């Protein structure tokens, strides 16, 4: 199975630890993953509310490019993943939008047939590759590491195509497959505040606090995420949380960083030094650090 990889703006910016860990993990698992040539910003959550047709054309261009490249299109950033899927549905259900977007794409020699499948890395890891295959390749099981799997909202709402909408399990399965202890985390799909941490911090930071607090109370050593904005929110506002609510020092990493660790990939390649709240102390404590 061949995949095109759609990084989106975040994975090249604040979310670069996600890309840094994701690519070597897939390589180690023998997956053929090529970055989509000449991809553009997906428009994220905001653009759709500004101009529906232009947003569809913007995201649609990536879909057309992916169709040309062949294979499934993997979008690790939760917002890109959802925007691409929403765009596909818009184009499928509204002939008028499909017409205008088709016309725009045609102007640059592209076309969209509605055939490409947009996939999430959790979906590919669990359903295409399989947890048995992954656990066989584990070199350094994450024994003793208690992880709270945090999925965020966009990969389960409104569409839950590869996992349960109320209680997703794909990340839980992966964490168990690599030997970590999964903490029961009922807030695993609750909103992190999104951009509200910037625009309406009294709401955003309060939501972040709720998530961090619950993970801590459930005994988690670390929170694993699949969304760059979730990771950013949960990681970077802990000083505010500490000053406004209570002390918080919970490391927040990408699932791929933990998978890479367990697969024995070199630590510096996994971007583990990039967190504001460092994950290294707990890894050292659990004797999981290696070169």
């Amino acid at each position, binding site marked *: 199975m061949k995949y095109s990889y759609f990084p989106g703006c975040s994975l090249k910016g604040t979310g670069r630890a996600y890309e840094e860990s994701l690519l070597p993990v897939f390589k180690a698992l023998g997956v053929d993953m090529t970055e989509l040539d000449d991809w553009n910003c997906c428009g994220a959550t905001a653009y759709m509310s500004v101009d529906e047709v232009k947003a569809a054309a913007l995201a649609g261009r990536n879909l057309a490019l992916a169709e040309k490249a062949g294979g499934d299109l993997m979008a690790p950033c939760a917002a890109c993943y959802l925007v691409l899927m929403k765009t596909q549905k818009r184009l499928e259900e509204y002939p008028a939008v499909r017409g205008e977007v088709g016309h725009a794409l045609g102007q640059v020699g592209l076309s969209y047939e509605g055939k490409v499948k947009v996939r999430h890395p959790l979906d590919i890891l669990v359903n295409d590759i399989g947890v048995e295959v992954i656990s066989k390749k584990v070199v350094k099981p994450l024994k003793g590491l208690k992880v709270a799997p945090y999925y965020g909202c966009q990969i389960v709402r409104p569409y839950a195509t590869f996992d349960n909408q*109320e*209680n997703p399990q794909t990340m839980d399965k992966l964490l168990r497959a690599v030997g970590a202890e999964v903490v029961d985390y*009922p*807030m695993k799909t609750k909103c992190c505040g999104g951009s509200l941490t910037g625009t309406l911090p009294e709401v955003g930071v309060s939501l972040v606090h*709720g998530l961090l607090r*619950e993970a801590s109370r459930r005994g988690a050593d670390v929170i694993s995420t699949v969304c760059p904005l979730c990771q950013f929110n949960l990681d970077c506002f802990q000083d505010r949380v500490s000053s406004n609510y209570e002390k918080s020092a919970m490391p927040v990493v990408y699932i791929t960083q933990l998978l890479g660790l367990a697969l024995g990939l070199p630590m510096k390649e996994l971007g583990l030094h990039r967190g504001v709240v460092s994950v290294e102390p707990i890894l050292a404590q659990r004797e999981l650090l290696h070169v």
Partner: protein
Amino acid sequence: MSDAKGNGAMRIGVYVCHCGTNIAGKVDVAEVAKYAGTLPGVVLSRDYKYMCSDPGQELIKKDIAEQKLNRIVIASCSPLLHEHTFRGAAEKGGLNPYLVQMVNIREQDAWVTEDRGAATTKAKDLVRAAVRRLPFHQPLEKKHVPVNPAVLVVGGGIAGIHSALTLAAAGKKVYLVEREPTIGGKMAQFDKTFPTLDCAACILTPKMSAVRSHPNITLWTMSDVVKVDGFVGDYKVTVNRRARYVKEELCVGCSECIAACVYKDAKFPDEFNMGLGKRKPIYLPFPQSTPLVAVIDPATCIEFKTGKCKKTCVEACADRKAIDFQMKDEMKEIAVGTVILSTGFKPFDPKNTPNFGYGKFKNVYTALEVERLVNASGPTGGEVIMRDGKEPKSVGIIHCVGSRDEKTNRWCSRVCCMYSLKLAHLLKEHTGAEIYNFYIDMRTPGKAYDEFYGKLLDEGVHFIRGKVAEVTDCTLRPDEEGKLVIRAEDTLAGFVRRIPVDMVVLATGLEGQADAQDVRRLFNISCSAEGFFLERHPKLAPVSTFTDGVFIAGACQGPKDIPDTVAQAGAAAAEVLALIDAGHVELEPNTASIIEEECSGCKSCVALCSYNAISFIADKKKAWINEVLCKGCGTCVAACPSGSIRQNLFEDAEIFSEIEGVLSRG
């Protein structure tokens, strides 16, 4: 012209009805009558204002006598309305009723056609077709099948009990078959009933005893219907009486065997108490079980599992010797004329709405579980003690769990608002807790129901209008610690609430029984898309089904409260009594039959019949149709490669002639 068998000349009378201006306003009835008069075989052709009226029918009778008519066409309204009327009129005039053919020139012509000319042409075509068809009609007789006065009632809840008692009081023999070890159904599990707050057991047990002691009722518990043969008036039903391992005729219900059981303490989940209490392998479902006979569960009894038990139960029953480990299931065959299905409902399983935390959080309960908690003979003696051992100081009752929900069940389960009010009252009475009811609408449609709601408002129960999003243990505030938080939008106040409570009660909806499809197939009735048994007509025939002789009553037909259930049970009993009193059933003669000489023995027809009316006679190598089972659908007729199956009233020749009749205009 003579009829198809060349028997005598056709003397067809054609009557074209005006139906006031309903037909005559659009169709030129005089012209149609005139045209009909020119057709071969027609000796008389009239138009008349109202054929269905008494004078109209008199006219037919007079003409049959005076004009020696031997076939009749009535061109008027739909046969679905008056076929019966005109067949009756012909019969009174001395003509076989099946020599009458109706032509629909009202609902399917005058009322749906704009142009007068087109409407008149259509009427002429249809009349011509009927005239062509009639020579192929033969006189037919309705079959009369006697009705066996014995009745089978399936399901021993309040509906089945009431039907059985009503029928027994009328002197009819009733078999009441119930699959549990005791009758009583769900009502026996309730504590009190709304809106009167009558004790459920108090009003139910006298009826249960009456069933047990009535000479006309044969009560078979631990029994299932496994096979049904026959048809209305003459059913042969096979019932499997499962082994109880205690002889019903010898056991007096003293419970010594239970006390003596080698299990000193009860250990296994008690079904009657919804798993909240425990029972021993030998047990009585509840103190007023009817019949009051112990039952042994082979899945948990040591003697069954290992063969090496001391059998202290047998010792305790030494003088009566009622316990019999060798007991076997027993198949019984009974003959009845009619069946009433009163198999009840299944409560919605809230595992299907995981956001309410049932099964995840200890102190989330279903309504039926709470009935057992508040009941004095329940697992906690009527004290509201939760699974964590504590008494709640605050309770949230969530309405519409598995009802009015696109994701689970779309319908309203009708009783949950009322029982939620009842449980709110009982919980408050028992514990003094703060009670919060979360509702979408308050549905209190019955007698004294809304007044009951008013009472609850006066008692200080809190009502919040809003669907509950989730029950969570992720707390935010100090007052939520150790509690379950119910998150709901209060749509009247306009904001989202977090209400911490000790106990959550889910007002689970009502569904059809899990095996409703299997049961309906046994009795050849249908289920609606929602999984309840399908009534013949939702308004005018709520307790009968499309299968003559099989009636339905109670929650198995749809969610309903006890008053409506009892009303339906009485209604079903009345319909059964009507059949029994009539003494016989008339079967329409449009059945199929096989011309033996022409049957090639290919068996194509045998598997086609949904009513198993066709069997293959092996030694003759011919198929044969039981005309009493045949419903007259005609599927086998169309399938037969040799054309050896004929259907009365819908023979090939009759239909071909009708087709040719509508098309030929010469």
